[in-house]
């Protein structure tokens, strides 16, 4: 079936994009292009691209290492280096990878950073992570971009002004210095025009789950769909092409009344529609996914696909106000929303996409996601009277994935949903 998956044009396009990206990174030494390490939530990749620099995302490298079964060894190396058992496993995996030669997912070496762009959105660990990287790469400049938390349920003009000020006084000067290029607002605007198109596609794509059967899985396949937008392609013409093609494919699936594509082919029967909160487990991604599609469970929305930006509540970048747009984009990321906003967002997903159940995958080593999850569950359960499931795993530490425990919980959860469906039919 993997053959059939490979036939999807959008997947081939994405693979080519990533291959080219890592090739370019590996050649940075020769081409003289500067390299910026930054985080996915609140990534201002457009600004990096406007300086003609290359972005690197340590979280994405970590999850790739997880999927390639390398994270266990990297984590062990990082622990040997002094990192505690309870530290975020993305951090340890990334540190371990660096200690082992910094070989990326395509087998090519990832260059050292010329700038650490610390876009801080909702996760305290980010600061500690880049402090560690600063020690591993002595002398590398750090640009801090602090994103104020949406404590009062909204973004105020003062918050935007505060961020724009940081961009102007901290981030842009450092980027100018590192890249040797002057800030070019027109170039940024033209990149943002593509971003805006991509954002429209993202919303339309994830909105197709309102169909029955849902043509896509918004979690397991969703993490692939958000790949380009979160890994340095947002704002590029390639991204616009990719998403246009992806959307076209999905529309064809809708016309043919086809369900989502799984590693074992098109899902035949949609039995359960779920909204999932929390990142997936990467070390056993296929096994994890299989537990769902074998049961006919499709994920119609997930919070994780919104970590790199939330667009379904109406936010779009405005190319005419580039720095303000970047600021608001950062403040709108899922992990920067307060807990009530997350409840509202998830509640909207559950209602709009007619979910039968809500499931939390609680990540052992991720405080930023885990905080508030129990409260979110209870609020949703009471507000929507929807069955709630809870499972535990980890991002990339293979020691914390217990297949049998998860299977046991999921079986109970699916039977709960089945039972409720029967009751609803009877009444």
């Amino acid at each position: 079936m993997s053959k059939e998956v490979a036939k999807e044009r959008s997947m081939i396009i994405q693979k080519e994009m990533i291959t080219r990206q890592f090739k370019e990174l590996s050649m940075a030494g020769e081409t003289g292009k500067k390299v910026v390490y930054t985080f996915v939530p609140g990534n201002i990749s457009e600004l990096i691209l406007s300086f003609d620099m290359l972005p690197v995302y340590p979280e994405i490298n970590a999850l790739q290492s997880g999927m390639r079964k390398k994270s266990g060894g990297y984590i062990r190396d990082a622990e040997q280096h002094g990192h505690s058992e309870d530290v975020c496993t993305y951090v340890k995996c990334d540190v371990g990878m660096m200690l082992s030669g910094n070989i990326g997912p395509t087998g090519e070496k990832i260059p050292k950073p010329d700038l650490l762009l610390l876009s801080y959105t909702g996760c305290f660990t980010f600061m500690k992570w880049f402090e560690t990287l600063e020690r591993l790469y002595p002398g590398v400049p750090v640009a801090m971009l602090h994103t104020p938390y949406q404590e009062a349920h909204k973004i105020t003009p003062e918050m935007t002004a505060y961020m724009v000020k940081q961009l102007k006084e901290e981030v842009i000067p450092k980027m100018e210095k590192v890249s040797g290029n002057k800030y070019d607002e027109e170039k940024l605007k033209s990149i943002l025009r593509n971003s805006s198109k991509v954002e429209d596609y993202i919303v339309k794509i994830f909105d197709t789950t309102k169909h029955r059967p849902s043509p896509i899985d918004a979690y397991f396949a969703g993490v692939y769909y958000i790949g380009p937008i979160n890994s340095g392609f947002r704002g590029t013409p390639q991204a616009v092409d990719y998403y246009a093609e992806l959307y076209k494919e999905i529309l064809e699936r809708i016309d043919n009344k086809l369900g989502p594509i799984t590693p074992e082919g098109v899902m035949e029967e949609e039995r359960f529609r779920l909204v999932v909160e929390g990142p997936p487990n990467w070390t056993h991604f296929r096994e994890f996914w299989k537990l769902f599609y074998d049961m006919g469970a499709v994920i119609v929305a997930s919070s994780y696909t919104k970590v790199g930006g939330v667009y379904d509540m109406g936010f779009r970048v405005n190319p005419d106000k580039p720095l303000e747009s970047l600021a608001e984009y950062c403040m709108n990321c899922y992990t920067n929303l307060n807990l009530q906003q997350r409840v509202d967002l998830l509640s909207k997903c559950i209602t709009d996409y007619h979910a039968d159940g809500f499931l939390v995958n609680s990540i052992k080593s991720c405080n930023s996601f885990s905080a508030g999850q129990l409260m979110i569950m209870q609020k949703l359960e009471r507000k929507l009277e929807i069955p709630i499931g809870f499972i535990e795993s980890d991002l990339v530490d293979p020691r914390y994935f217990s297949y049998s425990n998860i299977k046991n919980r999921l079986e109970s959860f699916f039977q709960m949903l089945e039972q409720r469906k029967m009751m609803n039919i009877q009444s």
Partner: protein
Amino acid sequence: MKKYFLGIDLGSTTSKAIIIDDNDRIIGRGITNTRANYTVATEIARLEAIYNARFSLLKMKLEDEIESKPEYKRYIKDVESIFQYLQFKRRLDRLNVQFRDTIDSTFSGEKKDKISGFVDRIVKEIGPAVLNEYLTGNLGQKNQFFRDIISEKYNKDVNALPKDYFEPTMLVYDKSISHVENELTEYDFRDLVYQAMELLNDKYSGMDDSSPEETGVGFDSELNLLKGNYKHIYDSLKEHISFVANLDIHITNMVGTGYGRALLPFPEKSIRSEILCHAFGAHAVFPNTRTVLDIGGQDTKAIQVDSHGLVTSFYMNDRCAAGCGRYLGYIADEFSISLNELGPLAMEATNEVNICSTCTVFAAAEIRELLNVGQKRSDILAGLHRAIVMRAMSLLARSGGVRNEFTFTGGVARNQAVLKYVSDLVLQNYGKDITINVHTDSIFMGALGGAMFARRGA
């Protein structure tokens, strides 16, 4: 033909079977602690539930007689006790054969003869002692497993042996018991129940001329009525007993649950998650239940249910065993006492010790330390019981807390000390008006839920 429904709960520590009729009435219960494969465990529990069902049906059939003639009630209770003894005896004989095999293959020469002699003596003592307990005591009601009954007596006798023989004689037991426990022994209900009646005749005839003081069981009005009258009762009950013995207990549908459920030879639709079954069972017995806490052998579940008994959410411990029944098993081993003795001993505490270990294995080290500094066993045990309940309370809180009526299920609910702490802490945390339910069949709730699903699915 009457319809019956079977629920099987294959837990991590015990396997349970429940048979209900088409009014959801429990008519048969079976339980085994065999560690054999789940197919054997299912059969043992199922057969036991069917034997038990025959007695229940007999009692239901004779409801009016039992009501008006207490001696009938007593007679049936005695037959059931002896029936259980005969099952025990059959297994003891089998164990004795196994003892011989083990001794022959492990020892030789003088040592072998000596050990053989010890084991012979022990076995000879166990049989009559247990018969006496079944006849005069209430061993049948205690729900003790074959292993528990034997080991209590065997350990006591071995402790009295010369020191050099302690280890080898215990080895004989350790090597033999599992074989017998893991074997499926089928009994012919009719043969066994007739044998039981004959044995009862002997018992009552022996009592004919004795005054109540001489029987050693104290004055007993039912027994008194029986003594002079047993032949008549025997004659009039024999027909009824033959009837239930020959009755075809037709299982119309069955549902399996518990950890071993995937291994059951049942179709997929007959396999249910234990979460749903426990909730459904608890809800059936206590219809106002909204929160169920189940502490089983290897997991603890906090389950929230709606007014129909449907699960709305559940929360289970994933990463740690401290908070499950196995923790208590481990502690019992550490104290060299049986699981049944834990609760009562903890209830004797005068000054509860604070146990901080959050880990089952580390708790053992903490116990040693506390014993070294002179803490009383009962006080330490009280602290341990509190520690396990605190873990369960945390799970309960995370699952959304106790909203309304609360039902405590699972094998651990039989432990008095756990029950005390659960009740105390639930009332303390969620208000003193919360209704707390515990049923004598709490360990069977999963199987009951399964049987009820089976009835609805038929």
